[in-house]
């Protein structure tokens, strides 16, 4: 067995060693992620009355979720907010990723990426709270604008509503959008762009016909990695959203921790995941068709 392949190979001994090695992290994910996710699914078909759990399988929670207007309203609003956050984040992030990949000198790129990621790692709670300070009635924006005489009355539309949630989340997820797009742009063979220019395309058409399609995998990754987690955020809606900016995660949290109705919370969690999952799949199918149409 001195011949350990120089490349990953499918030999039986090799496969066994690989499986053995991946065993611990796989078991961990299986027991603490896959099983609990399954449990949530099962739970959503149970019912709870105060502290007594009824394990008869029933669709009662789902029926309630679809008939109670509040739940549907929260689910739809969460989808809209997540969608708006995703569009805003990815559109704002693309030029930055493009700039760093195409216009920053190679030895300075790591520095730029580092600068972009730092705010992301710093206390999430406090960052969200600080947006309240920036957007608030006596906040930075209002006092500054009043100070230089642009407005007389503080702007009210920027705090305690969905706008504030979108701004705050677009800020929180910025690096998640920039990094995948940056990686995709870095992989583009620069000679393709030259070839396109030589063949008579302008800067703009080269971007639209060469750069953008090649960057699409990064954009798709960015969209999914922003869109899916955003639906589960409850800190931002609670702190800056006001009553009309609350999202489904706030309701899930209330069901679990305040109302003691875990099965209802589980059903809402399943529904929220099903909705983001469905939207993500439609999005993936559309981009695949777009790319095939180009190729």
């Amino acid at each position, binding site marked *: 067995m001195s011949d350990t392949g120089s490349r990953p190979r499918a030999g039986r001994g090799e496969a066994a060693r690989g499986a053995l090695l991946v065993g611990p992290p796989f078991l961990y994910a299986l027991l603490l992620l896959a099983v609990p996710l399954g*449990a949530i699914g099962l739970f959503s078909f149970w019912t709870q009355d105060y502290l007594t759990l009824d394990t008869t399988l029933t669709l009662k929670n789902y029926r309630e979720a679809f008939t109670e207007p509040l739940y549907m309203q929260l689910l739809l609003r969460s989808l809209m907010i997540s969608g708006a956050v995703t569009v805003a984040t990815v559109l704002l992030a693309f030029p930055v990723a493009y700039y760093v990949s195409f216009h920053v000198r190679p030895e300075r790129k790591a520095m730029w990426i580092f600068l972009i990621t730092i705010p992301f*790692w710093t206390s999430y709670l406090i960052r969200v709270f600080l947006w309240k300070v920036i957007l608030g009635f006596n906040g930075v924006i209002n006092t500054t604008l009043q100070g230089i005489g642009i407005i007389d009355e503080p702007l009210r539309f920027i705090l305690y509503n969905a706008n504030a949630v979108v701004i705050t989340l677009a800020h929180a997820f910025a690096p998640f959008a920039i990094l995948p797009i940056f990686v995709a742009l870095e992989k583009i063979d620069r000679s393709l762009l030259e070839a396109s220019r030589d063949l008579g395309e302008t800067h703009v058409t080269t971007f639209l016909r060469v750069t953008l399609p090649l960057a699409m995998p990064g954009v798709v990754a960015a969209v999914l990695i922003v869109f899916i987690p955003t639906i589960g955020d409850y800190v931002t809606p609670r702190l800056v959203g006001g009553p009309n900016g609350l999202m489904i995660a706030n309701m899930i949290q209330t069901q679990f921790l305040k109302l003691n109705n875990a099965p209802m919370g589980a059903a809402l969690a399943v529904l929220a995941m099903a909705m983001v999952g469905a939207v993500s799949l439609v999005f993936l199918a559309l981009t695949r068709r777009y790319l095939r149409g180009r190729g």
Partner: protein
Amino acid sequence: MGLRIYAVLYLIFLYAPIALLPIFAFNDGTIIAFPLRGFTTEWFRQLTEIPALHGAVLNSLIIAVSSAVIATLLGICAARAATRFVFPGKKGIMGLIMLPLVLPEIIVAVSLLVVLLQLGLPLGAWTVVLGHVLICVPFSVAILNSAFQSLDVSLEEAAIDLGETRWSSFRLITLPLVMPGIISSLLISFTISLDEFIIAFFLTGTDPTLPVYLWGQLRFPQKIPVVMALGTLLVLASVILLAVAEYVRRRGAARTGQRDTGGLM
């Protein structure tokens, strides 16, 4: 040129909230709004006098260190297996391990909570560790994947040919070369765990972690300046940790002769 201005404005947007932290941490007024009232270090002094805060910090540190170590050990196994071996079901297995990266944290939190409560297990620091390991492993794997990928397999083979065992060649050759990745993974996992709120909020039981404690304080307007002071220290700590992680990662990249592609992800 226009693009450059945009990029700089974007950075200002990214840093705006953090820049405000020290301003209000040293501001001599209990209301977090402009205009400022003068300089004080009172809020930092108060930080030293809150036992509940000290308990939360200690709790968070224990959780963060445990999560970082366990997540990195699991990350080493997964990254090594993914870069070196082919095994049945590889794609699905790696997919499951990386799944928490895109899963909303609240889903991870409530699903763990349901199982723990059903099993009748008490909540506490260790349950938070269980959750944090889950979300740290994908980051650890991502960092370590690139460390293992840049490794020349023939080095290890040469060691085995020269009479080392598989384990000793791993320890003597592979481990030192991926060490920067391991340290980087430890620091990043530590930072993630220290800052994580949603999972901790659900699974912490009666001993709050630092973010859970902070969340409680945000409800009391008069305590906000102290929170700002604490936030300033936290930001300082994570910037230092990240800078060290980045420095180690770059040195490691240089040592294995890798082109520096940048970024912690």
